[in-house]
């Protein structure tokens, strides 16, 4: 089994790839994909710290990861609904052109 810091480095790399996707792409769906990747990296950290840390009665890290996955799913559903809603209005998914809130 590798040591904890290797898992943390992989998780940091995944987080920064998500940051790259969220910051450098213009398409709204790419930004959502980047945010989901960052959330997955955070989950990986939770599970790694749970596995390597002192064991308690309740599996705390696993519980946090479960709730985090549920919240990520809710965020993805609402985000994609927003993408479809503004695509109907403006006929574009380029976030640079979404600079007004007038219906």
């Amino acid at each position, binding site marked *: 089994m590798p040591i904890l810091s290797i898992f943390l480095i992989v998780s940091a790399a995944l987080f920064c790839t998500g940051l790259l996707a969220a910051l450098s792409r213009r398409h709204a769906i790419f930004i959502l994909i980047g945010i989901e990747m960052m959330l997955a990296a955070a989950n990986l950290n939770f599970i790694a710290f749970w596995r390597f840390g002192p064991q308690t009665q309740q599996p705390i890290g696993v519980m946090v990861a479960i709730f985090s996955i549920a919240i990520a799913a809710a965020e993805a559903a609402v985000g994609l609904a927003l993408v*479809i809603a503004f695509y109907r209005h403006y006929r574009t998914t380029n976030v640079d052109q979404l600079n007004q809130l007038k219906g």
Partner: protein
Amino acid sequence: MNSVAFILIAILTLAAALAAASLPKLIHAALSFAVTFVGVAAFFFLLGAEFIGLVQVFVYIGAVAVLIVFTILLTRRDAGKDRGFNWGGVVIAIAVFGGLLWAILHTPAVSIAAPNIEALTVKRIGEALMTSYVWPLQCVGVLLTAALIGALILVMEEKR
């Protein structure tokens, strides 16, 4: 044997993540995104959290990736155009990775080996969810209902 599995999974996950962040075609990026989450689920299996790995496969690959593919197909008329690439994002991402790497390598407390633990059974997770974590569980249920209703209202056709 575990180290070989770790290296293979890490290469698969990070390569798929880079492909998802940089491929020009959206549909290819969405499929690489699904592969990334297979890799993350494999990490969860490697770390002994089998239940979370299964939840990850069901929720992300079964639901979120399919939702993303449907959204791409529904907004396809806009997908072909080139949008350019913001190189400032690359600089920021590399800087953040450098900072995190420096912090991880300079913290001696995280270079520890895994202790032997008893297997985490679904029975233990269920007992914890139904006793200590019953309030968060209810709140997540309310949140998911609210998100479902909100998503439906957002995409409903406007009556004119």
